[in-house]
């Protein structure tokens, strides 16, 4: 069958074709659509699909499943692999039962991420194979191959798509889902399942012994292919291989091309390729993984070859590549003219108003921040976290953002470091359940005097509205046990726990004031559904409008920053984006904003 598929959906279909029985993950752009696609159809395929509470948990669930002989896959974004690194590293020693694939999606250019980390390094670090797809078709094909390689070597195999593969669409050839007929069972085998030092030492040796076989097998994969056309060549990985192939076609140049799609990098193929060249350009996104390897192999096989790449400045070391960057690097190498994108006059560009992503009209986070600033003042310290609410950075209530769950812990450290001003750490419900619990426990245990605000909108909003334990249902829409954030916080040791609705500003401000005045560790839960999930659930609130007779033009509502409020001449005006949260009406000093009857 040929279908026009999103890269992540092609991956999901590959997982079904491989007959995996368990798929787990934690949402993170650009990886989320894999589980999003599989969850609603899990039942009909008789498989278990879950949004786990974090990536470490997801990884361990997939490992357990693999140890019953069932094939499993786990999905996350690159930084999620940091969270899951602990089980991941030791799994390489213990090995898998059924094939297990770790999908870690990288985000060059940080489209939706806090860093540009290269997951290929992690695969190298753990000494497991890594497959690096260039497009949705390769992504689907590599998933199938990854399962069989995993079983062949008894190791987890990583598949590493990037944003431009996960969120690309293409006509993709896919097959039908398969149902595997193995009878799952956990076999007791302590030397291979219990990572005691006495077991780990021989397992480490075994892992090293496997490497030669892995390299020899991967060298034969069709994703590592060389085309010889002259003494000047290019070595390119993943999507950069497609950019290079397109540039060669467009330039109609006689250039040799070696594409690398698997890691460990095939040493022999690289050496054979280098031997026949005078000059080579290494094209890859993110780290110079291949380039460093090429430099090493060149020393043995062809010390005279001239190597261009990131170190020579031919390929940028940060951000993502595109076909033009690669084309120009290639043209520069063979002395052809560079092509320039049409330049707009600088004046034309100065008239462009920036359009950064913003909190939605009526987003409860905006109201919660407004109340927070009223209660704490702008001089307080606001350690923040990762979610939609980080977009509130313009409101003066986002002072730090490091990694998932770090708001509470960084806030505690700021207190212990000697900061005397009030501290209000902010994180969302999904992030709190992901990795804020331990931070809160630690803050209570070690006596951090601070407030923690949990902005609870009952969903993982930023990544596309995935459910979590606080939502009350699973990825597959099964009801889950009710959970009270307040009870959790109390039992972790918070001295005062208060809940308020950010749409009711007065009570929200009151809750923050009480928390601020509490002498120890206080928690405020700001509870209101995400407007998008509310809209999807059928909630409709009447819109609001400004009475232009009463509006004095003070712009207080404009400064609040809701995208539905505009300034029109000398009065405010509310546009069609209004979702009816009613908060602007509460801050207008003239009482000029009213519900449209």
């Amino acid at each position, binding site marked *: 069958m040929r279908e026009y598929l999103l890269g992540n959906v092609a991956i999901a279909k590959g997982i079904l074709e491989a007959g995996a029985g368990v798929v787990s993950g934690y949402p993170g752009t650009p990886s989320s659509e894999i589980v999003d696609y599989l969850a609603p159809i899990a039942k009909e395929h008789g498989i278990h699909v879950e949004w786990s509470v974090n990536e470490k948990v997801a990884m361990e669930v997939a490992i357990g499943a693999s140890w019953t002989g069932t094939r499993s896959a786990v999905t996350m974004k690159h930084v999620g692999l940091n969270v899951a690194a602990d089980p991941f590293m030791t799994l390489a020693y213990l090995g898998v039962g059924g094939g297990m694939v770790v999908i870690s999606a990288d985000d060059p250019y940080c489209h939706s991420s806090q860093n540009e980390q290269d997951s290929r390094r992690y695969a190298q670090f753990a000494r497991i194979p890594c497959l690096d797809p260039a497009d949705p078709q390769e992504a689907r094909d590599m998933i199938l191959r990854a399962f069989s390689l995993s079983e062949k070597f008894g190791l987890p195999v990583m598949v590493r798509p990037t944003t431009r593969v996960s969120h690309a669409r293409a006509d993709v050839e896919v097959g039908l889902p398969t149902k595997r007929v193995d009878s799952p069972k956990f076999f007791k085998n302590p030397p291979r399942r219990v990572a005691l030092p006495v077991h780990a030492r021989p397992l480490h040796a075994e892992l090293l012994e496997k490497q030669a076989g892995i390299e020899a097998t991967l060298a034969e994969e069709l994703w590592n292919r060389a085309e010889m056309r002259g003494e000047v060549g290019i070595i390119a990985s993943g999507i950069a291989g497609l950019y290079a192939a397109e540039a060669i076609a467009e330039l109609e140049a006689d250039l040799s091309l070696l594409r690398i799609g698997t890691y460990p990098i095939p040493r022999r193929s690289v050496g054979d390729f280098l031997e026949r060249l005078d000059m080579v350009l290494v094209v890859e996104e993110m780290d110079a993984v291949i380039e460093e390897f090429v430099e090493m192999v060149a020393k043995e096989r062809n010390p005279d070859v001239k190597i261009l790449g990131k170190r020579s400045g031919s390929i940028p070391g940060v951000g993502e590549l595109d076909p033009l960057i690669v084309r120009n690097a290639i043209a520069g190498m063979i002395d052809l003219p560079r092509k320039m994108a049409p330049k707009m006059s600088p004046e034309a560009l100065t008239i462009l*108003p920036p359009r950064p992503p913003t909190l939605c009209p009526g987003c409860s986070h905006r109201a919660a921040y407004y109340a927070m600033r009223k209660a704490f003042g702008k001089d307080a310290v606001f350690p923040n976290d990762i979610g939609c609410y980080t977009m509130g950075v313009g409101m003066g209530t986002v002072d730090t953002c490091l990694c998932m769950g770090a708001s509470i812990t960084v806030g505690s450290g700021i207190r212990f470091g000697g900061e005397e001003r009030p501290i209000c750490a902010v994180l969302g419900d999904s992030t709190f359940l992901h990795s804020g619990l331990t931070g809160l426990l630690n803050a209570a245990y070690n006596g951090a005097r601070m407030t923690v605000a949990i902005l609870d909108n009952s969903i993982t909003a930023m990544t596309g509205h995935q459910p979590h334990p606080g939502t009350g249902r699973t990825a597959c829409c099964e009801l889950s046990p009710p959970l009270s954030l307040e009870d959790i916080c109390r039992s972790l040791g918070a001295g005062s726990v208060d809940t308020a609705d950010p749409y009711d500003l007065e009570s929200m401000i009151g809750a923050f004031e009480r928390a601020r005045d509490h002498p120890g560790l206080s928690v405020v839960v700001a509870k209101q559904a995400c407007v998008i999930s509310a809209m999807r659930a059928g909630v409709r609130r009447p819109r609001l409008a400004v009475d232009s007779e009463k509006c004095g033009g003070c712009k207080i509502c404009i400064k609040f920053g809701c995208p539905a409020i505009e300034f029109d001449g000398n009065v405010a005006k509310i546009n069609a984006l209004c979702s009816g949260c009613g908060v602007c009406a509460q801050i207008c000093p003239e009482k000029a904003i009213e519900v449209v009857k």
Partner: protein
Amino acid sequence: MRTSECDVVVVGVGGQGVILISEIIGRAAMMAGLSVRGVETHGMAQRGGSVINHIRVGCSFSAMISPGSADVLLAMEPVEALRYAHYLSPQGVALVNSRPVMPITVTTGMASYPSIEEILAPLRGICSQVKPMDATGLAEEAGSPQATNVVMLGALSEHLPIEEATILSALSETVPARFLEINKKAFELGKIEVE
């Protein structure tokens, strides 16, 4: 050598239905037996930020279009047309919805929104043809402002190497049946607008 039959860059604001255009074109291209590539914006920028999708019909390389080489820039919003104008080839065509969506930087008074002429003039300087149209108005005329994306698709249709009938059947397969009539009308109005 050309490496794609038709390269279209679709730009707009998160929430304007840019992804639907790519889905319909992709489907239509497959029906026509052409290979097709696309890439879209997901994640953070979807929250009211500026978004860009690439669509390449008759292409078997990557989904990314080189700056300076798009045959068509399909802009759902005027300043977004200018923001991504460097993707156009000198022979390219810009189809621009003239109805602004105010960015937060404008509504909060940090920046101002340029006039439509200030936007179109530099565009005219870098490509062969600029066609502004009130696509949102036409969509309203068709029955729903939500169909603005399909008006734009109608305007784009003559530039695609795909028969109109094929695009229309891809449209019918993609949009919910109850909105099909509105969407067909929107498509027609967009097509007529640029004729």
